[in-house]
């Protein structure tokens, strides 16, 4: 196959890809943003959040777990897809206790930033108001499961990068929840450390370094200054730079 044939089109724009590359990676490399929450450069994809679903011809697929193939004609930034993404984001909000005014992740939260990016003005769906256990046993790390969106990023980061396997998702459907791999099930009895990628990768306020909340003033937080699109593209570029 000739190199010139290894292209896909996203919203009419021709984009190159390399063999084995996902649509998400090819798009980000070409600075085309496909909304996502559970994708992180360098970690294996999981297809959990479904925000990156795009239309390929007459079918839908999650861009983070679908390999790019020559000639694919992909629709990404359409009003229909963005409406569906907004509804998915609203569902993520109401499934957990995402009360932005009283959450220390506000301004640095990818879920909140995604809501802004997609023009989400209200929750639309009724809140579940679920009660999930908060684990503050670790001296330096807080685990607030009520904010977990089950993106699986901490699971993959701990396994693939930290080499620790601290986290897993247990249960199914609405019973799915984050568990800790330790004799007591408590974070304090795991091998988790603040220097682990899993300690800082959480896109929402579920895993936090203790006593750091609100230290960055309003106006200087990540999403005070950037959109989630900027950060999505930047994370990819940074990873590519590191690989060089």
């Amino acid at each position: 196959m000739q190199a010139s044939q290894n292209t896909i089109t996203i919203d009419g724009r021709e984009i190159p890809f390399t063999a084995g590359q996902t649509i998400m990676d090819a798009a980000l490399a070409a600075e085309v943003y496909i909304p996502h929450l559970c994708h992180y450069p360098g970690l294996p994809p999981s297809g959990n959040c479904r925000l990156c679903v795009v239309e390929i011809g007459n079918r839908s697929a999650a861009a983070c777990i679908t390999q790019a193939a020559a000639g694919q004609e992909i629709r990404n930034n359409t009003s229909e897809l963005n409406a569906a993404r907004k509804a998915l984001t609203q569902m993520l909000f109401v499934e957990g206790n995402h009360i932005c005014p009283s959450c220390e992740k506000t301004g640095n939260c990818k879920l909140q930033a995604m809501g802004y990016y997609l023009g989400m003005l209200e929750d639309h769906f009724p809140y579940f108001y679920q009660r999930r256990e908060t684990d503050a046993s670790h001296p330096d790390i807080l685990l607030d499961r009520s904010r977990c969106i089950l993106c699986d990023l901490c699971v993959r980061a701990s396994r693939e990068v930290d080499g620790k396997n601290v986290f897993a998702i247990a249960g199914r459907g609405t019973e799915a929840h984050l568990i800790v791999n330790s004799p007591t099930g408590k974070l304090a009895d795991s091998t988790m450390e603040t220097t682990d990628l899993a300690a800082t990768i959480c896109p929402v306020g579920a895993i936090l370094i203790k006593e750091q909340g609100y230290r960055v003033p309003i106006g200087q937080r990540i999403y005070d200054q950037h959109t989630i699109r900027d950060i999505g593209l930047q994370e990819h570029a940074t990873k590519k730079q590191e690989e060089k």
Partner: protein
Amino acid sequence: MEPDNNPLPPATRRIAIDPVTRIEGHGKITLLLDADNHIQEARLHIVEFRGFEKFIQGRPYWDVPFIVQRLCGICPVSHQLAAGKAVDQLAGVRQLPPAATKLRRLLHFGQILQSHALHFFHLSSPDFLFGFGSDPAQRNIAGVLKQYPEIALKGVKLRKYGQQIIAAITGKRIHGTGAIPGGMNKPLTVLERASLLADISDVLQWSLEALALNEEIHTVHPEHRDFATVPSNYLSMTGANGELEFYHGGLRARHADGTHIFDQFDYCGYQQILREEVRPWSYMKFPYLSALGTKHGWYRVGPLARINNCDAISTPLAEAARQRFKAFGQDGLVHDTLAYHWARMIEALHCAESIHKLLQDPEITSTQLVAEKGELQPEGIGVIEAPRGTLFHHYQINEEGLITRANLIVSTTSNNQAMNESVRSVADQYLDGQEITEALLNRLEVAVRAYDPCLSCATHALGKMPLQVALQDANGTVIDQLTRGINNEIYRYQ
């Protein structure tokens, strides 16, 4: 009057005013008449349930200042700072960097200035400028803007300036961030300071004019002296030398005759001097000074209490105003409920002067704003003088840093019994056996508004809340009912 916990005394009729307007949140007044049509008791019901003390349980302690500030949209900074002081204790911090304390004080002066401006100009001035019984369609801030544009605009600008200080320090005019364990999260920049200093002369002038207006209102209307007036005990914080103090000091309480009940009491022991009584007809508790008991221990807090209680004010213009206030009271305490507004404007002037002084302090732009944390402590208590009075925040945490217990005594709660007493006083004077009129109803609201425009944090359009009055006999039968609708239309149901 002795508090009564009975649901309804025998042989009484009930007049209910629900809700009270131009007070943020819902208030409902029930007047209990005896068989001779005399007011037997007044009950200001607080019907909202907030639940903050319960739902912050299980939250990490460093989140608390920013959760509990949501209690209020008018004085969130006071809640943030009271909680912040408690959180400093929880984090084992004994001493903040000097610049952090100065920044918190500046923030709080901005808060009190904007809140006092809102309280008087936006919510209470219509009553005084148009008269208590005037047309309600005109008696609001929009009416003031139309009829007295110069006064209204200066009030609006005063509030705006206070909010600009808050925004510069916390990032937002309402519900920003700032007080983190051991200090503040952002310095005041040189540019921000210059911008605020540029307007301070105007702010001082407007504060002086606001004070002059209130002095005149109170001193030239002899009927204001008696309106809703109730001699009472007073509680407030004062500085080490007995001076007016909003941020940190000891507690002082006085009898109505001016003698001290206690002075320079360490607020961390507040449970030794204060108790809270629960009554079945209100969600709001009734605090009292434990030394005096439930019958005689109720007290007033807020501007009137602070100006009555303090021995001096550290800024010259406000101190001169305090001297005039004291002379008006013939060197005794001033118990006039409507003098709350006068005292409020003395404090607003003190805020303006203090802001001017702090902005000129070279240390105010320092970036040394956070102290080293110490060992986690199981308990933290923060007390501050909020715009409407002494505010208590008390938290306990477990060894993991999660809140296990919280107790908040907000200013309005402290004034609860006093508001009931003032309402009864006004009702006694104006409603005894008379036909209910809109003007009479508003007089009751004027009494409540002197203490507090925010019985909760609900926000409503000014003058748009419907007002209902029902007159019931001892058997609960409605014998008269008056309703003021959203467009000020009056309905009477027979």
